[in-house]
């Protein structure tokens, strides 16, 4: 079952290459693969919910340190979200890539499938080493997607992307992993942590810091630069990978390390994570502030992601079960919210050729569904009912109080206000703004001023699905909540 979760996307990738002559067949293959993968992950979910821990050893590169897969609740949560949203994103891509007349579409679908396969590897990694391996593979496979446009700008962004991700992972994360091995003699994830009781003193906060910064995909400042840079990629990539799969792989890894390598009780007892709480809090606030200054819609969303990712990191650093539950739930909630926002941004780009916030005036009256979805997504990111985001913020708030950090509650409130301000501007402008903001003529696309070409139905279906998902998660958060309580053993 676990092997299939890796094999299916890879087989899908092979199909995609085989069917490259016929776009329809190729995209059908992509969709079928995504559907099959989701079905497999559901089966794994069923097994894990029943208390099972399916596992599989793939290879043994270093004696005693195998590449092994093992499904546990946190990984299942991540895999569920990534595989479900892959279906939706594929639907969206079909409309987007054709509407945008992108080149090299086969390469696009191919590496997309590879990226998902490595995300599955990250989700089901049975030990730190396996996690690290798939983490690196994920960086490498997403690189061709980031530089998809092939322009000078895309190449520069690609260099930043790979540079930051590989440098942090090799220089900090790998060091932390070998260090952990040197202390404990094992790299397996274990309930209650492998370091607890084996490490003490100043080693613990330093090691934790190496992990948090070394997992560059979590985009904790100052290692966040790659994320805005990655926005040159086609929008479906930004939507799935840089709002869900890649960045969530980062925060997921942080959560996993906190829970299964350190153990939250051990961390809370040692007080080793307090300084990182405040690093995360600073990232939350600073990310929001930078988002304010960005006029480019995707850049604004990227900084919003930087800020939101640190919610999950914060949840992990709180080192109590409320925080971990909140962090895990936030992986899910933010995924649905942010992917909706990116889908909308892409739709606006394809249909109206607008990429700057200041150009959006009055567009909402021509694209009501898109802007309505954007509104719902915004609510979820801010954390307002009736959207799923409310739950994760709630648990994070409780966790902060539990940890005795009232200041962090204030940070959460402030950040919510900030994100409300910088995101709500967009639907407001769309619905109530003036039709043409002629003051930014240098960005204007004259040919777009006619009636926007109807976005392909596929893309609209995707947008509606994820927007509805945000609301459904408010009403039915139990599946994810239950998985998280299994993690914390509450």
């Amino acid at each position, binding site marked *: 079952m676990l092997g299939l979760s890796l094999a299916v996307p890879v087989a899908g990738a092979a199909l995609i290459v085989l069917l490259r002559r016929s776009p329809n067949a190729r995209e059908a293959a992509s969709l079928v693969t995504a559907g099959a993968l989701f079905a497999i992950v559901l089966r794994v979910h069923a097994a894990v919910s029943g208390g099972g821990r399916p596992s599989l050893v793939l*290879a*043994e*590169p*270093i*004696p005693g340190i195998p*590449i092994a897969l093992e499904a546990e609740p946190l990984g299942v949560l991540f895999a569920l979200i990534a595989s479900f949203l892959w279906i939706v994103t594929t639907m969206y891509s079909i409309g987007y890539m054709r509407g945008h007349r992108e080149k090299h579409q086969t390469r696009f679908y191919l590496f997309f499938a590879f990226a998902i396969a490595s995300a599955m590897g990250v989700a089901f990694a049975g030990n730190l*080493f396996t996690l*690290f*391996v798939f983490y*690196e*593979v994920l960086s*490498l496979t997403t690189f061709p997607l980031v*530089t998809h446009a092939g322009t000078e700008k895309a*190449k520069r962004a690609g*260099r930043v992307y*790979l540079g930051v991700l*590989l*440098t942090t992972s*090799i*220089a*900090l994360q*790998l*060091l932390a992993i*070998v*260090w952990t*091995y*040197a202390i404990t003699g094992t790299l397996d994830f274990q309930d209650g942590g492998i370091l607890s009781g084996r490490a003490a003193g100043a080693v613990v906060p330093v090691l934790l810091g190496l992990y948090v910064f070394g997992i560059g995909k979590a985009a904790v400042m100052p290692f966040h630069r790659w994320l805005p840079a990655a926005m040159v990629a086609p929008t479906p990539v930004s939507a799935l990978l840089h709002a869900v799969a890649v960045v969530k792989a980062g925060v997921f890894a942080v959560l996993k390390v906190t829970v299964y390598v350190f153990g939250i009780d051990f961390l809370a007892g040692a007080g080793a994570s307090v300084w990182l709480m405040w690093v995360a809090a600073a990232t939350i606030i600073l990310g929001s502030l930078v988002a304010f200054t960005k006029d480019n819609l995707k850049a604004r969303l990227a900084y919003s992601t930087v800020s939101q990712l640190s919610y999950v990191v914060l949840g992990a650093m709180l080192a109590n079960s409320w925080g971990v539950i909140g962090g895990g739930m936030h992986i899910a909630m933010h995924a649905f919210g942010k992917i909706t926002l990116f889908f909308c941004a892409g739709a606006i780009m394809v249909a109206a050729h607008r990429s700057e916030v200041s150009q959006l005036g009055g567009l909402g009256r021509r694209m009501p569904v898109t802007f309505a979805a954007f509104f719902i997504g915004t609510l979820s990111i801010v954390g307002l009912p009736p959207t799923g985001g409310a739950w994760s913020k709630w648990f994070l708030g409780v966790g902060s109080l539990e940890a005795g950090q009232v200041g962090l509650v204030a940070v959460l409130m402030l950040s919510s206000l900030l994100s409300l301000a910088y995101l709500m501007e967009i639907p407001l402008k769309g619905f109530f703004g003036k039709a043409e903001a002629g003051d930014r003529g240098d960005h204007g696309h004259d040919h777009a001023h006619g009636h926007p070409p109807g976005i392909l139905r596929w893309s609209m279906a995707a947008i509606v699905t994820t927007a509805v998902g945000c609301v459904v998660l408010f009403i039915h958060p139990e599946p994810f909540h239950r998985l998280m309580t299994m993690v914390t053993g509450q």
Partner: protein
Amino acid sequence: MSAHLPILQVVVPLLAAPLCAFLRNARAAAVIAVLASWATLAVALSLLGDVMSAGVISYEIGDWAPPLGIEYRVDIVNAWVLVIVSTIASVVAPYMITSVEDEVERRRIPLFHAAYLLCLAGLLGITITGDVFNVFVFLEISSLSAYALIAMGTRRRALTAAFRYLVMGTVGATFIVIGIGLLYVMTGSLNMADLAVLLPEVWDSRTVKVAYGFLGVGCCLKLALFPLHLWLPNAYAFAPSAVTAFLASTATKVAVYMLLRFFLTIFGAPFSFGVMGLDRVLLPLALAAVVTMSLVAIFQVDVKRLLAYSSVAQIGYMVLGLSFASVTGLTATLLHLFNHALMKGALFMAMGCVVYRIGSVHIDAMAGLGKRMPWTMAAFVVGGLSLVGVPLTVGFVSKWFLILGALERGWWPVAVVVLLASVLALVYVWRVVEAAYFRPAGGDEGTREAPWRLLVPTWVLVGANLYFGIGAARTARVAERAAEVLMTGVGP
């Protein structure tokens, strides 16, 4: 037959060499070279198998009993190095046929193959022999033929590079002879196992310490430890591509083996680390090699030279492992001997493919090659990732043990330096990748993929990089046992 395997290991290539020279036929010489190389691999593998199961093999040449007679002594350490050298030889020899036809004058080709076989015989001889003076003789056999091989490069700078190497190499070899002579004065023996027994009695004497110094400097010259590496970059950059691939993955490895043998087997780990403080001498040198040479590599425009500087940095890793003075550190060194041979072999062979098609490895000339020579450049990318130490490649495995060794000693700054140097490696590999894949192609439109006769051997090594990266448990176990043998002195 199998009792005579140790001598066959050396004699096969040694006799094949004059055969090549006398035949005067390029094709026939090439076939002989390939067959002889494959024969050495078969012998080396069966020797390793024997040693793993039955322990040390001792072979008395001409039935003269050691310590008087010359003994070939195979333990797990040199069986391992024999396998490394002969593996690379077996892969490079078929590659050489096509590559050399392009780069060397036709009438010199039989002589080229003869020189190659002599070099191989020399390297295998250094590795297998249990007699220190014999080491010197084989060292000179391999070095002299290496000078000749390098001088056959297409550009005239190959000649000056070979001359410089000759001067430095001879000085190094002479230093080793001095060291051997002083040891003989003190003990009256040339047999390694015998020396290991006799030396502890005379540890205190100044002569032994001087001998230690001469041997150390001589070996370090041969293995190009920073700052004694000056001969290496030009020699590798201007030699024929196949020669670079062969020497880069074998000659320095054998020199490292020689160093380990002298310092750990003959003098013994207690003397090296306890009395002489070898670890404290080598550690800064190794770190300096790793950092400065990686930095220098970043600024090279000739890719072969870039890889040559990277080799000097990688040698730093091997010496670093030795300087940890622990089994883990030595395991890293021994693993990296093998792993670096695989990756550098693959990289230089990929560059040989490029030379075959476009005649240059200047970084600008390689612009856009990713499209035109996809297999060649893909090989380079995998080899490069291995050099950086990305997981699932062999490079990662050796880095893993190296960092583990550093942390075991509690030297975490060393671990940090190793990791940062990996990032530097990423930078210089990336420069080539960027030129090949992200720059528009210039120059000749008609550039095609290299012929399969070059690609197949290249990809064999690339495949080995991945195979031993994913399933390194076996190689790691052999290396670990070899490291234990070295640390504990002569085995039974």
